[in-house]
């Protein structure tokens, strides 16, 4: 599944993004998968749902705003998402919902990374990674099976070291330690606070073809968090997503996507898969 994507990415030169057909009509053939308003619908199975699965609806506003320096060299890779939300319904009844108010991944790119020790004559030492941070604020998750409980993730932040500079055909291949604070609120019970004080780690891979028609991402995290009350408890979760734009309606891309997710949950709820269609009001890429 990932192989065709990587092949597409490797063929990055690609055709022009504004295509003219035999009739002289022009239309965009490239789209920015990081800058769009998207809505999707798909079938979701596993994850504790009944055998027939359920309908998943999702929406997000993604905002990409990379910056370049005076010489035209990329300085910051900046991907943000606002109101990224999804819900699953079975038989017209909502069984779970989750969302994040804001999420941002900021990577500082340098041609020659370094460590600088300030002083009268600063010393510059080589460093192998780009650095950055991923921040997420205002996350919530709710499940009908535990309908009196709301999991609130107030803040999650990860220091990132990015390997892309080593020549991988990816937008980012970053990993790093994680800091998080959340609280589980349940009616008539004391709230449970959750803290991950750099005792967990995250992996964030993202690949996109040059024309934006293929994209894939893998986000995984694992570690140990402290629950109060409750003590230390391990956690692990991850999501792999692959998307392919197959047509455009009025120059708005429509994509097929497949998502696989897993997390440390009771048996039968650990793995879930979603496949569906995603319509996006995306920024066309001009090249």
């Amino acid at each position: 599944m990932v192989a065709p994507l990587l092949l597409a990415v490797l063929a990055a030169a690609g055709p022009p993004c504004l295509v003219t057909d035999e009739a002289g009509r022009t239309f965009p053939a490239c789209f920015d998968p990081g800058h769009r308003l998207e809505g999707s619908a798909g079938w979701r199975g596993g994850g504790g749902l009944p055998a027939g699965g359920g309908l998943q609806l999702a929406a997000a506003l993604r905002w990409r705003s990379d910056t370049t320096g005076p010489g035209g060299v990329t300085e910051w890779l900046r991907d943000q998402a606002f109101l990224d939300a999804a819900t699953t319904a079975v038989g017209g009844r909502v069984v779970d919902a989750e969302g994040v108010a804001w999420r941002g991944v900021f990577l500082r790119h340098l041609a020659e990374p370094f460590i600088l020790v300030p002083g009268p004559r600063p010393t510059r030492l080589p460093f192998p990674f780009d650095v950055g941070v991923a921040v997420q604020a205002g996350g919530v998750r709710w499940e009908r099976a535990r309908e009196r409980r709301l999991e609130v993730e107030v803040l999650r932040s990860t220091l990132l070291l990015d390997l892309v500079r080593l020549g991988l055909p990816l937008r980012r291949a970053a990993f790093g330690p994680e800091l998080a604070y959340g609280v589980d609120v349940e009616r008539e019970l004391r709230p449970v606070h959750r803290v991950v004080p750099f005792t967990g780690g995250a992996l964030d891979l993202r690949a996109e073809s040059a024309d934006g028609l293929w994209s894939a991402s893998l986000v995984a995290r694992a570690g140990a968090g402290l629950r109060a009350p409750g003590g230390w408890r391990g956690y692990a979760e991850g999501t792999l997503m692959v998307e392919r734009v197959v047509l455009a309606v009025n120059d708005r891309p429509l994509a097929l996507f497949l998502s696989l997710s897993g997390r440390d949950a009771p048996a039968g709820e650990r793995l879930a898969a979603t496949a569906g269609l995603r319509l996006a009001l995306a920024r066309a890429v001009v090249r």
Partner: protein
Amino acid sequence: MFPTVAAVIAALSLAQAAPAAPQPPATPPGPPTAVEATVAPPPTPGPPQTATWLPLVAPGAPALRWGEPARCLVTPAGRFRAQCDAAARRCLIAPDATLGHDGQVTGPLERVGPCALPVLLPAEVAGFEQVPALAESPPGFRRDERQRASQISFDLARRVWLGGGWASGGLPWSNQGVVSSGARIDHPSLDAGVPTIVRVRFLEGWAAVDGSAAGFSAVEVDATRAYPHPLLRLTTFVGRPRRFDPPLYAGLWAEALRFETLKTRSGARYQRTRTAAAALTFDVWRTDDLADFIRLKLGGGYEKATGGSGDWPLIFAVEGDARLDRDGLHHLRGSLGTELVLPRGAGPAAPLPQRRQRQHVRAEYEWILFSINDQPASLVVAAGGQRRNDVPDWPTGWVGEVTAQLRFSLWAPPLRAAATQESLER
């Protein structure tokens, strides 16, 4: 005989040779020589003629001036950028590339735009003194002998940060690791021609590693401005009439959603959520750019703690934030304050007293130790104490605390008033 491009190249070759750099391999062409340049055709506009090797910049070499155009100078030896002063009949000439440790051209210059066309012709600078130089850098950056740019000035008032370290003291949660995070954006501007600053802090918090204590603030905003006319004027009439304008500059401060959780000595959990707070601020000292200050803060808010029905805290504080050096590598912050907690209803149940208060004093020093890819890592040492009687089963006397953390900041661009590099240090 007036100097030509040949003289330029000769001067660059002689004066910019790196004192300790290894020699380039024998196969690629070495740094240009006067002979090569003498026989070279005059530079012509067009695609850059990039040499593989260029001389490193010598210590003491002056830097091209930032903000002024640099003309392209193309020679058989390579591509240079030049700034010429017709009045002084002098040209500063720098390699137009980033160099390897042996002088190999490794890429374009970072953090500067391309040199300006048309290409500088020898006839235009005939008779000019040719000075080997360092390429220009934006304020707050420094180039080394290889012309690599590194940020050396950091604005810690514009950053996102994560930190971790150790806390030691007499509080029940002390003597363990702590982690912290936060973001701050200071936005100075001119409001009707008057300097104004808005400071925004968000998602700022800390937690003990075992979760026994944590604090978190969602958003904190304050704003102040310069006043063309002083708010307070005192005139004395004892002896010669004299006027004094005390440094009193008013501002506003507001905060939304501050949360605190503590595990008390009995093991019970105390939680307090301050929904909102606001205060008037009065700067008693500040720098001209309003970035550094000492101020008084007077205000109040609304909060609710475990088992309570809501309280109105009154806030009195003195706060300060100052940068100690030109480049923003050293910072000193401090605060001293008291909060009187007034109950909204009948007041707390025993054993809490009816008259509750929180007092604190804290000083914090932050020192940028190094930077990774222009992102600063700093040591933060803080010392302070607190006294409070609003938490059941909690020490009611003064309790001291010392913390040391390593903090990694992202963004932290150069200070707005950062200086530009004038020369390469000797």
